[in-house]
């Protein structure tokens, strides 16, 4: 069986580990190291697939009509190489699979959701651990990407401000980027030199980001768009984030605008884009949103530990960060991927506390940034007047039916059911295992 490996997403392991060493670690101790990676490795007649524990990097595979194993980060590329959609599966996060002519067998790995919560967790010890892990991760980034441009996506909220704090402390020449919609008058004023954060129609996110960036000594590059820009970004948002579900598509649209301007600001340079994603899933800090009578981003009414389980396992599906930024040749970096196990040990009783994220993470901020960080809980795609990107999609009448149609249009000739079944129960479709552990 030939291996056709179309994987091209950058791998970040935050340690000097080769693909082979990552695989060997998974096979020997049963757990893969943290990071952002998806790999396919042939050794003799054996082909192994492995994917990071959070599922940051996507990994699709299937056999084409010639019997070759086609592997890739983008499902559409695997499909374009002759694998029918119904035959494409995803390697689940944190798993090592052995793939043969007979099918796929799970040979090692661990589900993140199986990490046991620590009922006696000490917040102080947690913070020491998180700080040490982030210090190591950023030291590795400084070495690995020496000479590169660094950009941090900053909303002015706690998670991105924490990443910006560590970036400012460890990395040279970091630029902060922050997004806002502006109305037509303010777009003109901005084009004539008015700072975006001082304009009336700028989002509160941008204003908070400007204060945090200033406190950290980072130059801020506002990324501005008129609300009208969304209509032209919908198709690319669906395709690049490999998802049709609104919460991921809306976020992908914001990231798309950020990616476009970061790429334009640093032409020809290798740019590492840092984001503060993942903590909201780890501490299940999400709420549903209402626009008029419509309810979006519904949150299941279940106990906090169960909610966390489904938020975290749901990180498997959707590619709103790496898929979007990498499409513009930018290297996406999600340092909180290094901390998944630490956060999974936070007990359910703590998750139910108001402001738990603030309790856990605020002491890790650079002290000069702390007074400027916004405590308002706002998703990136909701920030701004009239509910930001979500509000614009709503007013355009672009809901799940339209997004699903755009998704299906990528696969002409495939039945709708095969397109839809790529995501089932919140995860990319796993393989039908032949055997294994």
């Amino acid at each position, binding site marked *: 069986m030939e291996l056709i490996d179309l994987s091209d997403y950058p791998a970040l392991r935050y340690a000097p580990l080769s693909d082979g060493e990552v695989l060997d670690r998974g096979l020997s101790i049963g757990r893969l190291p943290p990071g952002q990676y998806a790999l396919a490795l042939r050794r003799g007649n054996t082909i192994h697939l492995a994917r990071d524990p959070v599922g940051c990097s996507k990994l699709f595979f299937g056999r084409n009509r010639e019997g070759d194993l086609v592997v890739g980060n983008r499902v559409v590329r695997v499909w374009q190489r002759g694998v029918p959609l119904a035959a494409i599966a995803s390697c*689940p996060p944190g798993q090592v699979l052995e793939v043969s002519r007979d099918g796929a067998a*799970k040979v090692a790995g661990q589900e993140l*959701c199986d990490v046991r919560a620590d009922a006696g967790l000490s917040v102080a010890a947690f913070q020491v651990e998180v700080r040490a892990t982030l210090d190591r991760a950023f030291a590795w980034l400084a070495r690995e990407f020496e000479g590169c441009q660094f950009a941090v996506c900053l909303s002015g909220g706690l998670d991105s401000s924490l990443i910006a704090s560590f970036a400012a402390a460890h990395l040279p020449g970091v630029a902060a980027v922050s997004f806002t919609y502006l109305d037509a008058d303010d777009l003109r004023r901005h084009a004539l030199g008015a700072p975006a954060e001082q304009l009336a129609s700028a989002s509160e996110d941008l204003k908070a980001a400007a204060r945090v960036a200033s406190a950290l000594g980072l130059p801020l590059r506002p990324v501005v768009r008129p609300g009208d820009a969304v209509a032209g970004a919908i198709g690319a948002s669906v395709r690049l984030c490999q998802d049709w579900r609104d919460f991921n598509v809306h976020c992908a649209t914001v990231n798309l605008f950020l990616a476009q301007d970061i790429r334009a600001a640093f032409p020809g340079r290798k740019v590492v884009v840092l984001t503060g994603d993942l903590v909201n899933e780890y501490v299940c800090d999400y709420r549903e949103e209402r626009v008029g009578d419509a309810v979006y981003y519904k949150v*299941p*009414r*279940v106990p906090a530990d169960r909610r966390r389980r489904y938020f975290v*396992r749901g990180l498997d599906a959707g590619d709103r960060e790496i898929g979007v930024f990498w499409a513009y040749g930018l290297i996406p970096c999600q340092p909180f991927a290094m901390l998944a196990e630490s956060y999974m040990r936070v007990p359910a009783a703590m998750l139910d506390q108001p402001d738990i994220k603030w309790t856990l993470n605020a002491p890790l901020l650079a002290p000069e940034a702390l007074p400027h960080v916004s405590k308002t809980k706002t998703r990136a795609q909701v920030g701004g007047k009239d509910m930001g990107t979500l509000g614009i999609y709503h007013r355009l009448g672009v809901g799940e039916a339209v997004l699903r149609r755009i998704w299906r249009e990528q696969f002409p000739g495939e039945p709708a059911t095969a397109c839809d079944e790529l995501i089932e*129960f919140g*995860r990319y479709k796993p393989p*039908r295992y032949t055997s294994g552990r």
Partner: protein
Amino acid sequence: MTGALRTADLVAKMADYILSQHPSRFTAQTLPHDQSLLELGVLDSAGVIEFIVFVETTWEIQISDEDITKERMGSLDKMAALVQEYAARKS
């Protein structure tokens, strides 16, 4: 039937939950047992999670992530079979 858990009882209890917590056009007489409640529009993605947690809590089981698939959970009948399987493993 497996052990003390009869398929018909399991399905009836699940159907009661669905009909009371997620009102739809279906009744106890018309709610399909062999079709996906997600595809029928009875449950949305949040509702599916609530349903899984209901099943786990009611029958004191923890469904493994690898069993959360359409193949294993794609209808009330399949859910009942899954509960029987987990219950049998416990006993």
